[in-house]
């Protein structure tokens, strides 16, 4: 109010700025606002992800286990399938059966005495199993097999489910209806029923595990991909692309797919533990990985069979399994939060 009724004298002589009124700012002050700087979407996601302590913890665990699964067996002097043994002076075979975890130098350090026994100077970090195989090597070898199965199958599932969901959501109408009825029926078949029918058709082994996972895990992916598609396909840029004459395939896979990748990766992170769990279950039951290969599941089974005599044998595979579950779940949670941050988290 006060400003409107300014003195008439000022209004009569309007002020004209002169050159001296304008000063160049020092160079260092001319830059974009850092508090609200624009950053690329993925950079924002990464920053958000790494601020989450749990997610980083999960990432560290998973990375550590993957590194150990890749390099662990190489670090060991033993092979995952060979029995540790030597011939003694009397040319008798001495087998390292059921040796509890031992580290000779630590033993020496703690007790001050040199360890005694047949395999006293061998380092068995996790001990040996009932046949005399080194458990350290076997555990990491088994983790390698389990992880490999999980990664490969979930990757293929991702491609199948993603394409299915995107196509179903994009075309809509009759196509969507038919495709969704099929998903509904497929989703109503319990995983175990699929496995039991498969077990009649296929020989047991890695193939059975992979096919079982391929048949079941794509459904979740396709649902998420379809939901994302329904959200995105109404946006202007899709219309623009269509106006410019783009074909459906181009719009689905080149224009829309990159924008759905976030939620799909999150789903992948939750699917990998499921895959590892399923593999462990099938191997434990005895239709999964077959000898002489081993996986986390067969190692738990071995440990269970010897639990009354060699109780330490079951611990390493269980720990690896639990830590993998933990790690992937934490990463998945972290990704989900980072991809769709709520306002209060900002």
């Amino acid at each position: 109010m006060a400003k409107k009724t300014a003195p008439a004298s000022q209004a009569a002589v309007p002020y004209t700025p002169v050159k001296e009124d304008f000063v160049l700012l020092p160079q260092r002050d001319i830059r974009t606002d850092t508090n609200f700087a624009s950053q690329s979407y993925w950079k924002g996601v990464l920053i958000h992800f790494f601020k989450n302590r749990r997610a980083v913890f999960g990432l560290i665990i998973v990375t550590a286990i993957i590194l150990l699964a890749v390099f662990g067996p190489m670090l060991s002097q033993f092979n995952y399938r060979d029995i540790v043994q030597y011939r003694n002076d009397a040319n008798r075979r001495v087998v390292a059966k059921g040796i509890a975890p031992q580290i000779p130098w630590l033993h020496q350090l703690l007790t001050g005495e040199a360890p005694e026994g047949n395999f006293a100077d061998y380092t068995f970090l996790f001990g040996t199993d009932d046949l005399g195989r080194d458990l350290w090597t076997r555990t990491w070898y088994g983790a390698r097999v389990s992880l490999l199965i999980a990664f490969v199958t979930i990757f293929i599932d991702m491609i199948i489910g993603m394409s299915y969901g995107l196509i179903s959501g994009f075309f809509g109408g009759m196509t969507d209806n038919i495709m969704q009825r099929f998903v509904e029926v497929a989703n109503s078949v319990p995983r175990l029923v699929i496995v039991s029918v498969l077990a009649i058709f296929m020989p047991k082994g890695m193939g059975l595990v992979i096919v079982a996972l391929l048949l079941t895990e794509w459904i979740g992916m396709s649902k998420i991909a379809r939901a994302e598609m329904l959200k995105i396909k109404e946006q202007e840029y899709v219309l623009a692309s269509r106006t410019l004459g783009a074909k459906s395939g181009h719009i689905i896979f080149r224009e829309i797919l990159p924008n759905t990748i976030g939620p799909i990766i999150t789903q992948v992170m939750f699917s990998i533990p499921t895959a590892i769990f399923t593999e462990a279950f099938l191997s434990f039951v005895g239709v999964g990985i077959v000898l002489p290969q081993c996986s986390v599941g067969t190692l738990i089974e071995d440990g269970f069979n010897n639990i009354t005599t060699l109780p330490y044998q079951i611990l390493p595979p269980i720990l690896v399994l639990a830590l993998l579950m933990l790690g992937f779940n934490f990463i998945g949670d972290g990704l989900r939060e980072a991809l769709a941050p709520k306002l209060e988290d900002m």
Partner: protein
Amino acid sequence: MLKYVLKRIGMAVLTLLIITFLLFLLVRIMPGNPFPSERMSAEQIANKRAEMGLDDAIPVQFFRYLGGILRGDFGKGTSLYYGAPISTVLSTAISNSFRIGGLAILLGSAVGLLLGIVAALNRGKFWDGFCTVFSILGVCVPSYVFLIFLQYTFAFRIPYFPYFFDPNRFLFSAVIPSVSLSLFTMSTIARFTRNEMVEVFDSDYVRLAEAKGMYGSSLVRKHVLRNALIPIVTVLAPLVVDLLTGALVVEKIYGINGIGKLMVDAITGEGIDYNYVLALGILYSALYIGIMLIVDLLYGVLDPRIRVAAREEG
């Protein structure tokens, strides 16, 4: 509402029929011969096939089988160990699995709810942290590992509970399997209850209720719990299916004659034949679809918004 319910039920029955037909087809076109052909002449085999109705067209066989199921007759196992009528074997197995699974659900959801509520009411304090750690542990470790651990500790090292399941001392020997089965349910429910309740506590309508002067247990019961429970029902459903359909490995390890053990035998092919695979497949699918249906309908009862949406949809 009635129209919606009928539509859902119709869909469920149709889906189950389709699955049954597919399973039937798969098992019938399976390679191999049901008879040990070296010992039988061609004529004997032909007679046997005619007697079992294997020469009829597949649709005829299917409807005959379907009729049998409706009368509660799943046919007969042909193998040595499971030669009895399948329905007899299944009913015993179902009763064992349901009792143990039911105990696990009760224990899991009761303790889980309690833990979740306590954690949500003491946000950021000891019980909240305990709930978090507990739920992480329960989700990351499979139930059979808990079973192995409990069996080793409380049945082998401290031989208080029986090492294997004993039907004559049901409650006593059901402790170890039910507890190990309930842990997954417990941790999932606890985590969900906590998160949902925290979310509801922060919502505007709870703030309004507080502003009106509501507090304490009546606020928690009338406003927070009721709204927090709705999502929990959806989480509980698949868990119930898992538990009722038998905890596969747990039953196998602990020697419980349940459907889970039958299923493991079917998967590993231990003395179980195609008829069992078929019957189990149908049973599992029926349970799964049935419970999903119940949850859908229950959701409508708990959440008026869905009721309204269903009415508008027709």
